[in-house]
């Protein structure tokens, strides 16, 4: 069925879109590739992940600041504005800051702007003017209706309703556990993609699995998992947790890879299949991942020229004046070659470690990827927390079996916890019995998976690694060389990991750059990571308002 076309404005110009599709996709289809400007150097950014996580598509929407437009359905008459740019995100004159960026390390102002003294306040006024992002409205029309706080205490909580999460959930339920699954999307993922909604339909009837769609896990607080679903704030006290959060796009660490037109393979597939939007006429495919092959075929079918896939390590630069115009890569003979392109699709992904890090679980380099350290049953070093891998792996059946094992192990853990509690309850008056004898907490006794522990080679020192703060590889190295050798100090010095994507898109690259040639592990062989800070996702304050706060 053809959906109605709607018109809205972007930076004052009229744009047409299909009613209900994400704003960012309407803009891309209309040829508007630059949607935002980076915080420090006003580098152009466009739609990249389309899952509401990278933040490159943030715009002001109907007066609300910094809205991730890939998650907002377009409506007739919407007013969308670019932020942090003058006069517009497309032609932002402040991009001159990027030209001098090589002379401006993140702490440059600590050695400047002291003299003359009379100008000291004025300097900081100017810095303040350059800072900021979204405009705060006048508060007259904000939504701050109260949310209901709801509690739950399933035996096993599975976070993530993709194929891995559902496999684990079904296995845990078959083992007798009451299972709740949190899934951020509104509906099961289509069959055959990374998620597989058909799994539940195939499962035996009467299983104790409850899937809560449109419910986003927002935090881990000493074993309590919080979540929001638009109406309620959930406080869930499970006996065991399975993290099945999949993965994030791993942007190639080369100069220019943050340009508009560099997109993840899953977004490319969605654009072509669901939205019938062709993101470019000349596509270069980079890296691996099973989605990439399918994307290449879809591009060709749509009439686009396709090159690649080339290995990620062969890619040297993504060039252009704003959006992608060419790539430089190392050819078979080792010589650098230049190829014109208007879209670069990359397939590399990196495990989503949000929950594992929040819970204090150990992570390490596994096959060159920063991943949770688990035993064969998916057990992490955080007691009661299990992790299952991204199903978009070369061998989905092996990962599905691993997920089922983790589900069974989680159910067994929950059963032990229950048994321990029942024993405890029998031994004392019920009025003072603890609700949960065993809560999910961090312990000091980690199972370890065999890991080679070796980080991959860090990317180009001139590549932007942390996109929120425009931190480049050389800046990480420079701080370390200066003596700020603790990752927490590097984080504070550069701002890496502290931006609105909360480190989701730079943790791997920053850790890799920091580890390069450095003994960046603790005496027990752990990778040194800065402290994880909740919440797991950016949360609008208005969505956290409750009637009767404690």
């Amino acid at each position, binding site marked *: 069925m053809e959906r109605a076309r709607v018109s809205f404005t972007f930076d004052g110009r009229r744009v047409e879109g299909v009613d209900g599709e994400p704003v960012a996709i309407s803009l891309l289809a209309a040829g508007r590739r630059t949607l935002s400007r980076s915080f420090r150097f006003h580098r152009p950014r466009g739609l990249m992940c389309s899952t509401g996580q990278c933040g490159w598509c943030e715009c002001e929407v109907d007066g609300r600041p910094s809205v991730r437009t890939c998650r907002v359905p377009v409506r007739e008459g919407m007013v969308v504005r670019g932020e942090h740019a003058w006069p517009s995100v497309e032609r932002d004159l402040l991009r001159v800051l990027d030209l001098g960026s090589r002379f401006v390390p993140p702490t440059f*102002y600590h050695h400047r702007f002291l003299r003359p003294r009379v100008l000291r306040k004025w300097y900081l006024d100017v*810095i303040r003017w350059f800072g*900021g992002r979204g405009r705060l409205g006048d508060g007259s029309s904000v939504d701050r209706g109260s949310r209901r706080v709801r509690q739950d205490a399933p035996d096993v909580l599975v976070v993530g309703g993709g194929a891995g999460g559902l496999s684990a959930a079904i296995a845990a339920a078959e083992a007798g556990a009451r299972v709740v699954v949190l899934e951020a999307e509104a509906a099961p993922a289509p069959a055959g993609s990374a998620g597989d909604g058909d799994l539940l339909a195939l499962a035996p009837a009467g299983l104790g699995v409850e899937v809560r769609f449109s419910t986003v896990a927002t935090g881990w607080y000493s074993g309590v998992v919080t979540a929001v679903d638009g109406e309620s704030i959930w406080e869930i006290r499970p006996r065991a947790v399975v993290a099945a959060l999949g993965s994030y796009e791993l942007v190639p660490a080369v100069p220019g890879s943050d340009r508009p037109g560099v997109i993840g393979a899953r977004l490319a597939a969605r654009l072509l299949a669901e939205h019938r939007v062709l993101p470019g006429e000349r596509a270069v495919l980079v890296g691996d991942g099973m989605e990439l092959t399918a994307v290449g075929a879809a591009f060709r079918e749509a009439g686009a020229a396709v090159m690649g896939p080339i290995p990620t390590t062969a890619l040297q630069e993504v060039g252009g004046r704003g959006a992608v115009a060419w790539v430089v890569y190392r050819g078979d003979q080792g010589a650098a070659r230049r190829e014109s392109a208007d879209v670069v699709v990359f397939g590399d992904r990196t495990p989503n470690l949000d929950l594992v890090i929040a819970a204090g679980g150990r992570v390490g380099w596994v096959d060159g990827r920063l991943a949770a350290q688990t035993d064969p049953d998916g057990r992490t070093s955080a007691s009661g927390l299990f992790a299952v891998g991204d199903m978009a792996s070369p061998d989905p059946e092996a990962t599905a079996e691993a997920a089922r094992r983790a589900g069974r192990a989680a159910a067994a853990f929950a059963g032990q916890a229950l048994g321990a509690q029942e024993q405890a309850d029998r031994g004392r008056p019920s009025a003072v019995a603890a609700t949960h004898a065993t809560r999910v907490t961090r312990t000091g006794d980690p199972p370890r998976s065999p890991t080679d522990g070796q980080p991959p080679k860090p990317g180009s020192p001139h590549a932007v690694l942390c996109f929120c703060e425009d931190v480049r590889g050389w800046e990480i190295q420079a701080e370390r060389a200066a*003596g700020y050798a603790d990752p927490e100090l590097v984080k504070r010095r550069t701002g890496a990991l502290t931006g609105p994507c909360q480190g989701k898109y730079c943790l791997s690259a920053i850790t890799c750059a920091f580890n390069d040639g450095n003994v960046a592990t603790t005496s027990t062989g752990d990778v040194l990571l800065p402290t994880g800070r*909740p919440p797991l996702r950016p949360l*609008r*304050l208005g969505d956290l308002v409750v009637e009767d706060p404690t």
Partner: protein
Amino acid sequence: MTRGALAAFLAPTDMPATAEVVIVGGGIGGLAIARELLAHGMRDLVIVERGYPGSGATGRNVARIRAMQLTEALTHVARACQDKYDRMGDELDFNVLFYRLGYAWVLYETEELERMRDIVAMHHRIGVRSALLSPDDTLRRLPVLRGGDPVVGAVLNDDAIVHHDAVVWAHLEHLAGSPVRLLAGTTVRAIEVGDHGVEAVETDRGRIETRAVVNAAGGWSGELNDLARVVAPNRPLRREVLVTAPLRRSIDAAITFYRPTEGWFNQTLRGEVVMGVVDPHEPNGVDQSSTAAFLQRTASLVTRKAPALADATVIRQWAGMYDVSPDHLPLVGPTRQLDGWWQANGWSGRGMLLAPYLAELLATRMTTGATPDRLEMFDPDRFDPAATAAGHEQDYYARYGAR
């Protein structure tokens, strides 16, 4: 500072066997004391820090540098503290981003307004130019409060913020290349005491003989006092903070409201809004974990006062330790309980403001033996050793203003 000096300072290879003074705590307190003792000519100084420099409350606070206080004695001191920060850039040749953002106590109860009239009169008497604003002027000056709970007024002063991490870096780069040694990642295990007082500090990396120890351990000062069998009434108390994604300049003062509920928010130079609402039932004890209840409490109350902030998104939250004394004033100076034991703790949430200046006074006391006038009110022996801070946390400011 020469190239490489900082790296050598932050990662020393050898462990000193003796020191004239061992400073325990590498936060703003310990670093400032090292700086001032160095300025007074002492050279053989060792700072012992359990984590990395600034890893305690120093790296977790929002660095509001407020001269206007609720009592005359403290306002005198706080003004000197603010001046110290104003000079810090020149003295350390490092821009700590001292910025006069402005500071407002926003009032919601008529009774509070009456109390503030007296306090503003006191400010004017001693030369602090605070202003009592009408409700209309409050909303004109702070439009973020429009549409929120009705205000009865505000006390506004030209107070400042600084970059808390930059203050740490400024001190590190100043101390690097000096004879001062910093032992990061080093934990104190025991304090050896003899007939004539302190004799040595035993750490997990070795023993340091010394006749003087400064307890600048913040929320952990109680644990350290216990090792020396020194009794002090301080109690650690968790405070939580959240920060939003950056917004364009829209809040032109650091705001605090505290009756009937205590909360605060302000915008950093980068545009993020930091905020918090205090849990009046927070128990004593060291606990740096974050809570979900804090997010809900802060979102609910702050957006009631400033509805526009409902559209801001929180991207990070954390917690840090206050080291609270019964009268909410720090303990700075020697104690009669143990020769060679110097207190520089109990900052009660004012360490960032007070420490650099009080460190200067403490260094004078340590090197000359004479007690500067302004140090007297912080005498660690002013408490009955058996006294505790219990019962004072319920209304932080009530006690603070009662003196």
